[in-house]
């Protein structure tokens, strides 16, 4: 009996999370398989909270999250097995070397040792970390730390990569490397969801863009779709600001 292939890498329905006030308020969102999806929104819009719930770092108050057809709330381990989470602040251990870190992650995700090592060495070479492969991460710059964390997110070959502001604080060369690696993943059939404040990145890289404000999705589509929805503007910046203003007025 053949299994039905899911259409979406991520499907969120009626997602809610409340702290002092609603952070995510009945959010519906779908991301197709093999898509590069950028999630935009002003500070405090609920982007990070949404992605933290998807990654299993926060429990929603209501709603459902499906990752490649797996109910992430009912079977979080199965969902985690096929995704990776990368935050703005790299999650690495200062006292481990990049290779030791990747060995640890490969072990956690149950990747075969030989396969994991081959991938780790390939990623280290790809990200230009080879000269530092046997140094402890404690002396690394922000860009190098982010590269190590990115290698960690990729070493177990996730189907879905979720990145929260991965380019913040990176220099131009490091940012370009990270963007190239992500693009390659999408070309290879992976799905990437990324939040960013750098609108140019979303404009150039994303297949579709979602704009979130006050915990709700207020606009979604390709850049042209968004321009049409905003009814004006040439750049994404103008479109984004108009959409957020319209969304705020509507609510």
């Amino acid at each position: 009996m053949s299994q039905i292939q899911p259409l979406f890498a991520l499907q969120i329905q009626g997602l809610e999370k409340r702290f002092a006030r609603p952070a995510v308020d009945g959010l519906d969102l779908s991301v197709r398989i093999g898509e590069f999806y950028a999630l935009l929104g002003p500070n405090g819009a609920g982007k990070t909270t949404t992605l933290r719930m998807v990654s299993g770092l926060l429990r929603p108050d209501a709603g459902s999250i499906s990752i490649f057809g797996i109910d992430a709330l009912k079977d979080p381990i199965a969902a985690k097995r096929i995704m990776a989470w990368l935050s703005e602040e790299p999650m690495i251990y200062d006292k481990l070397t990049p290779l030791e870190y990747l060995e640890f992650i490969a072990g956690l995700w149950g990747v075969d040792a030989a396969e994991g090592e081959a991938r780790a060495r390939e990623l280290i070479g790809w990200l230009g970390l080879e000269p530092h492969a046997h140094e402890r991460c404690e002396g690394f710059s922000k860009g190098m730390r982010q590269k190590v964390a990115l290698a960690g997110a990729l070493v177990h070959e996730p189907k879905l990569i979720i990145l929260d502001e991965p380019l913040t604080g990176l220099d131009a060369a490091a940012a370009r490397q990270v963007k190239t690696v992500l693009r390659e993943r999408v070309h290879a059939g992976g799905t990437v969801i990324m939040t960013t404040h750098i609108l140019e990145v979303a404009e150039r890289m994303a297949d579709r863009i979602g704009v979130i404000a006050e915990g709700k999705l207020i606009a979604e589509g390709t850049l042209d779709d968004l321009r049409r929805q905003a009814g004006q503007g040439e750049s994404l910046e103008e479109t984004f600001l108009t959409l957020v203003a319209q969304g705020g007025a509507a609510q």
Partner: protein
Amino acid sequence: MSAPGTLTWFARHECRLSWREFLSFISAGRRRRVRGVVIGTALFLAFLHLAVWPIAAPYAVIDGEPTKLTLVTVTGTALLSWSLMLSQAMESVTRVFYVRSDLDLILSSPVVARRLFAVRIGAMAVGIGIMGLALSAPVIDVLAIIGGWRWLAAYAVVAAMALAAVALAVPLTIALFRIIGPKRARFVSQIVAAVIGASFVIGLQVGAILSYGTLSRFAFLRSERMVALAPDVTSPVWAPARAILGDMGALAAVLAFCLAMLAASILCFAGRFGDYTIVASAVARNAAQQRPLSGFRPASSRHVLRRKEWALLRRDPWLISQTLMQLLYLLPPALLLWKSHGDATGVEGVLTPVLIMSAGQLAGALAWLAISGEDAPDLIATAPVTARQVLVAKIDSVLGATGIVFGPFVLAFAMVSAKAALIAAIGIVVAAAASTEIQLAFRLQAKRSHFRRRHTSSRIATFAEAFSSIGWAATGAFIVLGSWVALLPAFQAVVVLVGVIFFGPARKTAV
């Protein structure tokens, strides 16, 4: 208002920071807790006074001129405290070199950095002095209540000792920095500080064991041979002891000497502090090289978690220095064990509680690092492993590391007395498990670098851990001695553990 960049301006700035840090230390960020902590501390101090009373009382009354025996005993006790102060001071100086905090801001500003470091050296002396005064207060108070007001002069001597400790710690640490280089100085100075802190008390105990077959420091200090070897009562060596005993002339001399030491240290070294911190910061950015990994090793998720914990524990210099301190304190009992080979009487009752107590304390520190000090909590939380698997692996690593440290001691103990060694082994497992459970109940999300300040987050956890370890140690000792009294400390330890399990914050907040 003092002008910006002057000594008094920096002193005001440091005072404000220290005061706020102190407030946050006692309140753990919750202002309402301050009153509770003050009342708790007062009650604890009262309890300490009562506990110290029977120990200090016999030495309180001194009629006429102090004898050589009295001077030796007082000087020995003061030196013991001073070695701990010196150890603490070396720790503080090292921290100034390597912890960046606000140094980048100040060193990049146009103010004279020498003034800031002069103030910081002074602040270290004040901090260590306050700590010394707080710790010695119960002893001094009891001596003053029984033996008269003249003992109160000891407070001033403790303050002077803090000045001298910092004055010596600064050149010592700088010398280490220059001799072995900034790369290794941080680690080595922590080890040296630990050794200095423990060496005097251990030296006295080793002397006592070799001469009299006992662990009592006082037996050695008050021995005829020691008194005979000591200088004559008229020697200036006894000035600190005379000052403690209320001789105002000696007190003035000690205070003046220690103040001069600190002033000289500040004058000579404050100017160089800035240069050393800059060198140290360059080293901090230079990562340590590890032996290249020969290849990824196949392992279960539980195994990789445990391996990660062990690698991080092994590479933690502060933890290693603390573990070394624990091991150093085990040396005298080990020597006693060796001396008493074939005649276990008395040794069992000493060694069993020492081993159990040390294991409980070490396991508590390791458990905090493994359970609360997770530097990548989001990574672990997004990994396809259950929270239970993570927890089991962390507990594994704590108990395993404790076993590795204490296993050889238990084996050596078994050569003298198999029964006592078995009791000690069981006690070690129980005390380590209890400390781990306490850390589990009070777990929080913190960085490993916050290890030194772990007691801030929960004083209840600190006391629970101490009472639990003491309880199991006393239980082990009484069982070895074959006394039913063992039931009492065991009951106390169980009550502590049950209280922690049922009322600890982790249970209340568990989802």
